[in-house]
């Protein structure tokens, strides 16, 4: 029965899979392989064909390039600046939202609406917020008596400003994941701990947060990967400046590939970046595997 089924369903299966697989091969797998091949050649944007064989020289050049490392460091620095607040605040807001049943829609609106906006819109709004002297945030900081930082113009501060914007923009996603995690915690656990005399604060610390550890591990890995992929905010708000202080890893690829026309080298830089993202996912997989039996 099973074998005749296999015979009869093979052809329809092919037809069902074909539309997706064709596009998938053409636009995901194909370019991935092509990019990998290209990274071993001196391929140029302005000529056809792969160009001269380069061996590992593109990789050697990227790994010894100060610009590549500093772009990678900016991306890591951005990830360090954004990940802790994006997780802590999302958790805090979700825990606070748990305490009420009314007005959920309002909190979802406030925290999640920014997340669906295009990066360019977010960038325009925040460039205006950060405009020296005139911007709302600039005025607010001066009003409470602090010296106004040169938000986007100071090479040491620009990344912090980009991080603030990003926290505002993408917090809603983590907030929603935490709300879903909270909804899965059985009510009886809270009731039981209340009968045992635990106050609300103890409940949160000893019951709720530990039970959210799976959600937290998911939120952390998704956040780290999303932060590593940063491109839009820098590209629109600072163009990687001032003085390349906010150029991200992806913008480095963009610059060498599409401004310097060095496709092969850009492909090698992309591949190195991909390895970093893959390593983060792998670490997460190993760590959650180890966690699983306890839960």
């Amino acid at each position, binding site marked *: 029965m099973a074998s005749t089924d*296999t015979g009869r*369903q*093979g052809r*329809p299966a092919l037809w*069902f*899979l074909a539309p*997706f*697989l064709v*596009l998938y091969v053409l*636009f*995901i*797998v*194909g*370019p991935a392989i*092509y*990019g990998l091949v*290209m990274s071993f050649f001196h391929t140029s*944007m302005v000529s*056809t064909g792969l160009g001269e064989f380069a061996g590992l020289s593109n990789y050697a050049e990227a790994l010894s390039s100060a610009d590549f490392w500093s772009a990678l460091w900016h991306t890591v620095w951005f990830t360090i600046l954004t990940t802790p607040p994006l997780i802590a605040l999302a958790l805090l*807001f979700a825990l*606070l939202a748990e*305490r*009420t049943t009314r007005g959920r829609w309002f909190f979802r609106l*406030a*925290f*999640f*609406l*920014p997340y*669906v*906006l*295009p990066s*360019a*819109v977010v960038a*325009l*709004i925040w*460039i*205006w*917020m950060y405009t020296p002297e*005139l911007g*709302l945030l600039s005025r607010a900081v001066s009003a409470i008596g602090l010296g106004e930082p040169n938000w986007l113009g100071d090479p040491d501060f620009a990344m912090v400003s980009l991080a603030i914007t990003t926290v505002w923009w993408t917090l809603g*996603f983590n907030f*929603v*994941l935490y*709300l*879903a995690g909270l909804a899965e915690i059985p009510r009886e656990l809270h009731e039981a701990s*209340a009968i045992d005399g635990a*106050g*609300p604060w103890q409940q949160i610390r000893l019951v709720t947060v530990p039970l959210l550890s799976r959600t937290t591990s*998911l939120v952390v890995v998704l956040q780290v*990967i999303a932060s590593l992929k940063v491109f839009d905010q820098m*590209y*629109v708000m600072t163009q990687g400046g001032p003085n390349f202080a906010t150029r991200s890893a*992806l913008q480095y690829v*963009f610059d060498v*590939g599409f401004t310097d026309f060095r*496709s092969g080298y850009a*492909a090698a830089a*992309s591949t190195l970046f*991909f390895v970093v*993202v893959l390593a983060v996912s792998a670490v997460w997989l190993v760590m959650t595997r180890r966690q699983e039996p306890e839960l």
Partner: protein
Amino acid sequence: MNASVDRRTRLFNRTCVGVLIAFAILWLVPLAWAVDTALKPNSETTNPTWAIDNPTLASFGALLAQGDILNWYAASFITSALACAGTVVTASLAAYALSRLRFRFRWLAFWFILVGIMIPSQVLVVPRFRELGAVNLLNTYWAVILPQIPIAIAVFVFKQFFDGIPKDLDEAARIDGAGFLRTYAQIVMPLARPAVSAVAIFAFVWTWNDLLWPLLALSNPEIMTIPVGLATVQGTYGIRYADTMASAVLGALPLVMVFLLFQRRIVEGIAGTGLKG
């Protein structure tokens, strides 16, 4: 004692809600300020007040009259709608095969598509650019639409949902003589509406908001999508802050509407189907 615990809990809950409302308002301030600025005349945007002395739609009028933004709307709608339809159809068909049909290379197809979840599309821009350049598709809508269609995770969202639909239903239809395509279209898909709407909304929003790839693929201002157009003109308004904010508000408007219409589905899509699967 119980009463005092209750009162303490209630006080605690009230404080929590108060703090959260304060944060929520803080989160809405940038959006409100953008709208507020857009409704001022350009010359009054340097006033630090929320009150608008001479409210005007002049900035919106000027932008719409100038016309680029209408082209961008058209480009964004066309590319997002077609990419979204393409994703829903191709991913659900593939998921149906993985969920319902028995064939020799099923596990291979499964893993082959699973690999795609790991590849961030951003690392593919250089080879894609050459690929689409070679077939002269750059600077067409197709350059934006086609690469956005194969979203590997959408296949798994559908597969997971299809796996939860009792097989008796489509087997009954099969006994009545319905082919696989009819079973898919008339039995499985109508039952999978939550998955369809989650995938559709996300595919639409992702295509609409994508910047890096369309920025490379579209250099002709007449067919730029909204994010590319806004990123390109960013800075050219100079100190005409009201015009800048009006363009941001116009760029945000369609997605604000999508959000208001579908907010429950979007939130459920994130929480339930898409990412935890």
